């Protein structure tokens, strides 16, 4: 990943009459003015809250009374909290199911698009679900998967299978939600991968063809290895998003049945805004943050280890 900087080589001679400021600081004064609004936003709504969130995690805090420092109590409680471990387990399962299937399908769609068509209409069509609100998607599938009226169960019934309570069965709830989000995100992920495919030099394929490699062989020996860096980057984005699943669960199962879909985001939300336990909720958020950071760093390291020279 090349980092592009905007600075052109500094021309030492013939500086334009515009250099009124001392060279050492460059355009610092203008830059500061241009950065005022963004800095206000960054400091007020990202930086300070991050520090405050870390502080809340060390306190007993119910919003109604000021926070009271309790050291690492919240973290100790977490270790012994079966609901926390359940939330972590459920979220991990969800991410594995969601990302596994989504990535395979997205690669397939991207390769198909590259081979078959350049049509913007088709690319737009697969992208459409991604731009519709999670709540809308959740409700549409909630109806389609309804036990009695859902078209999916009607079709299952027609081919002689038992109708399923997709959202009411503890074994089915999580896979169902994972699949719904695969449906929503696969087009978007496919387009990201498609962009990566465009960067692969066509001559590589031509060379492979001269060597007698068929389409499958080309895919396994050329496309996938060269796609690795792009794939790693796409995975960082999709995995981070997948860990933060909330809307779909909140609208359909609300964590049930018997906590089978109580993902970590929902658990934090319930603790903070249901039970006003802001301290403990913040502590779990800190852990989630660290997990995401760890996963991202790990993926980026793997990417560097496998960095292929695409250019």
């Amino acid at each position: 990943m090349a980092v592009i900087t905007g600075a052109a080589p500094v021309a030492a001679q013939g500086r334009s009459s515009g250099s009124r400021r001392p060279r050492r600081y460059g355009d610092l004064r203008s830059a500061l003015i241009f950065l005022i609004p963004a800095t206000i936003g960054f400091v007020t709504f990202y930086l300070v809250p991050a520090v405050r969130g870390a502080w809340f995690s060390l306190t007993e805090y119910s919003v109604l009374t000021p926070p009271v420092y309790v050291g690492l109590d919240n973290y100790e409680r977490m270790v012994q909290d079966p609901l926390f471990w359940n939330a972590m387990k459920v979220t991990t399962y969800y991410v594995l199911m969601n990302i596994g299937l989504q990535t395979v399908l997205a690669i397939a769609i991207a390769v198909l698009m590259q081979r078959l068509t350049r049509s913007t209409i088709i690319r737009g069509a697969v992208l459409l679900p991604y731009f519709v609100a999670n709540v809308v998607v959740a409700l549409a599938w909630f109806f389609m998967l309804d036990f009695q009226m859902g078209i999916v169960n009607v079709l299952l019934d027609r081919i002689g299978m038992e109708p399923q309570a997709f959202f009411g069965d503890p074994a089915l709830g999580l896979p169902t939600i994972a699949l719904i989000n695969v449906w929503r995100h696969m087009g978007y992920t496919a387009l990201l991968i498609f962009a990566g495919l465009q960067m692969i030099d066509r001559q590589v394929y031509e060379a492979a063809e001269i060597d007698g490699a068929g389409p499958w062989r080309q895919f396994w020996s050329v496309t996938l290895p060269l796609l690795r860096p792009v794939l790693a980057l796409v995975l960082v984005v999709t995995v981070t998003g997948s860990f933060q699943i909330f809307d779909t669960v909140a609208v359909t199962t609300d964590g049930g049945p018997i906590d089978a879909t109580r993902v970590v985001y929902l658990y934090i939300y319930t603790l903070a805004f249901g039970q006003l336990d802001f301290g403990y909720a913040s502590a779990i958020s800190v852990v989630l943050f660290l997990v995401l950071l760890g996963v991202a760093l790990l993926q980026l390291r793997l990417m560097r280890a496998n960095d292929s020279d695409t250019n």
Partner: protein
Amino acid sequence: MSTTTAPTAPPPTPPSTPASAEVHRRPAPRSRWPRWGTVLGWVTMIVILLITLFPFYWMLRTAFSTNSELAAQAANLAPAGFTLDAFRRVFGLTTVEESLAQGGAGGQINFWLYLRNSVIMSTAITVGQVFFSAMAAYAFARLRWPGRDVVFAIFLSALMVPGIFTAIPNFVLIKELGLLNTFPGLVLPTFFMTPFAIFFLRQFFLGIPREIEEAAMIDGASRARLFLRIILPMSSAPIATLAVLTYIQAWNEYFWPLLVGQEDNVRVLTVALGIFRSQTPQGGPDWAGLMAATLVAALPIVLLFVALGRRIVNSIGFTGIK
């Protein structure tokens, strides 16, 4: 590249006959797929498109149905008992008795109010975020100052923070400022910047030739003037793209409005949909009404998407990883 031949050779296509696709000289990699491979590819593609688009059709079809007929004709591809009643319930045009008779919840939903709120929130977020992020992107892309890249990296690092981690302290902050259930409370956290917006615009600003600015500097133009009169107009396409993406994202936002926008006068459509779903009769949900509501909530985005599809589609990719 290994030079071993593939273990499974494709069925040989006679080299004398030119492949039919050769006629449309597309820039696609020209490895000749066997004909059945192309057919299989298209079949797969069409199946994927059907799966992708079917739920949208199903929402549409259900929204025009009556609840009583829906149960009887669950698999009918056409609307079951064609009617506009569901939309009338959504827009609050029915009396409570009518609504209950049609299998609705009987509760009043102020649809127009929620629509207005969604528009206000999304518009405010888009205008602020795009303009202020453009200012910041200008400072990061076109100005030279010590520490620039470090500061940019710090801003960018906010991308890694999960939303809920800052949502709790932000909720407390908005509460302390007395802004719960107000539009400023809904809008402020994303009004000034998002790391993505700054990153996105910076990539485009980097590509503008320096000479243009330098010529204007010689003419004595100020930085502000350069930014407003040259940089922004030259980048109108990426700015429009970012504005559309920001608008859609704000429109679809559920989590933050759920926290700080619970009262009717600021409740947005997504939150209202969630409530509509929880209010619907447990035994026999008002499916037609639910689908009509989701359809209408999604409609502005779908229209925006159809109108600006090409621009949105082409914005998905890697800005500047080469």
